[in-house]
């Protein structure tokens, strides 16, 4: 797929959770092979928007979603769409790392295994490749069989990224993925995002404007469940068209 072609296309999306109208009339095209950041104040619906992309709301009670979310032209809310197939296409990196309760190796091999890869040689190749892709290989190659929970929190987050990549997704969703990390780990993860956008479309939720500025090509500003402004990073941060955006980004000094 060529760069800048829409990868996720959201049409007339409305989300209600427990009677509250969380997302209102969302229409947006998220481009391929770029980093798009969703910014906005707490409780504005950023995370809800991100989670509608891989249907994680399905596990919560009383959530109503109307409208369409097209990924590669396929409506993921179509009742005929296989949910595991949708989720396989997207890797999620959550706020805090939640390694699976197993070894480092098995964490990365988990996804490929459930999707049918059984051969040890194949799994070895995937594990090594993804741990290298997330700059973790040199740190863990001698203890692949030790528990993933013994890694530092920054290493765990990179492991979770490797685990997500091992499934072979096309899109990476990051939900404030660096908020629990120290500055060094944060910068490693940010560098990875920039590097990974050559091969993946990346959508990040962040409340750190500087982070959005450092890593993203596009910014979506969400306020009170609506998209207020959407554009190139430079433009949204330096020359916002909307009053609300101006208010929100004025703390950001270049």
């Amino acid at each position, binding site marked *: 797929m060529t760069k800048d072609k829409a990868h996720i296309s959201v049409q007339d999306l409305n989300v209600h959770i427990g009677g509250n109208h969380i997302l209102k009339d969302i229409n947006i095209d998220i481009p391929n092979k770029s980093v798009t950041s969703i910014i906005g104040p707490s409780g504005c619906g950023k995370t809800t928007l991100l989670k509608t992309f891989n249907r994680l709301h399905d596990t919560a009670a009383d959530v109503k979603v109307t409208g369409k979310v097209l990924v590669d032209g396929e409506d993921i809310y179509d009742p005929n769409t296989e949910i595991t197939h949708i*989720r396989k296409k997207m890797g*999620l990196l*959550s706020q805090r790392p*939640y*390694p*699976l309760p*197993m070894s480092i190796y098995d964490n990365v091999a988990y*996804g490929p295994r459930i999707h049918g890869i059984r051969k040890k040689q194949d799994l070895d190749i995937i594990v090594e490749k993804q741990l290298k892709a997330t700059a973790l290989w040199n740190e863990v190659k001698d203890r692949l069989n030790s528990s993933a929970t013994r890694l530092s929190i920054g290493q765990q987050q990179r492991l979770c990224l490797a685990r997500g990549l091992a499934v072979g997704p096309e899109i990476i969703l990051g939900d404030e993925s660096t908020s629990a990390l120290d500055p060094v780990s944060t910068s490693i993860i940010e560098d990875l995002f920039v590097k990974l956008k050559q091969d993946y479309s990346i959508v990040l939720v962040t409340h750190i404007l500087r982070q959005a500025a450092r890593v993203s090509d596009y910014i979506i500003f969400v306020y009170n469940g609506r998209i207020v402004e959407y554009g190139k990073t430079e433009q949204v941060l330096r020359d916002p068209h909307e009053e609300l955006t101006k208010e929100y980004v004025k703390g950001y000094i270049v």
Partner: protein
Amino acid sequence: MRRRNLEELFFKFLMVLATLIVGGSFFLIVGTIFYKGAPYMTFDMLTKIPGGGFYIGKEGGILNAIIGSMYVAGGATILGLIISIPVAIYINMYMDGQKFLANTLRMVFDVLFGIPSIVYGAFGFLIMVYFGLRASLLGGIIAVTLLVIPILVRTLDEVIRTVPLELRDAALSLGSTRWETAKVVLRAIRPGIITAILISFGRAIGDVAAVLFTAGFSDNIPTSLHEPAATLPLAIFFQLGSPIEEVQGRGYASALILTIVVLIITILSELLVKKFYKHKS
């Protein structure tokens, strides 16, 4: 100021007293059993079944009851676990849209938890009569299984609820089905499963009312599920009811054995839980 200090002192005194009564009772109970039972605590008690005239003070031991209790408690815990794990998983991971039903089920299990064990014994007995079973190891296991299921379900339920939702989301995001996600959750709660097993085993081995009608009693070690089986609590009950001093003494020795078994289980569960949680984040 003086009044407040007195008040502080008074309530502190009450708390220390209450703590001493509780702690003291424990030592008093264990001490009494030890004092009365230790003289009769012979190697034969642990390794022999009752010999001729055991109940009038002649030789033998209570190996039949020790083994019988292990069979009943072990069998009931295994059977209970096979039923309880799916229930706990289902309530927590498949009833997302049915919160009300899930909570109603939890309440039902809480009520079952509170039902006295004699009721389970009576119910088990009715089932046996219906199927034409006689008092047997199988009958005892079934009645005690009914007794431990609510304990197991509620313990596992609490443990599953300690697993962060984000871990489930992580597994789901990788394209896991619900069952595959449930397997990840089961891995995460392994220490909790061990705790549940030990709590259930401890409760099952000490219960007398559930096995009273259902397991029967026998001086022999059961060799099949259809033979009656002796259990430690019932053995203690019979021995203490004897007018003969030596048999009563053996009753205390049996109580000592049961207490030690339960103590070992408790300590073991503490140790195992600590060992497992060391690997948790």
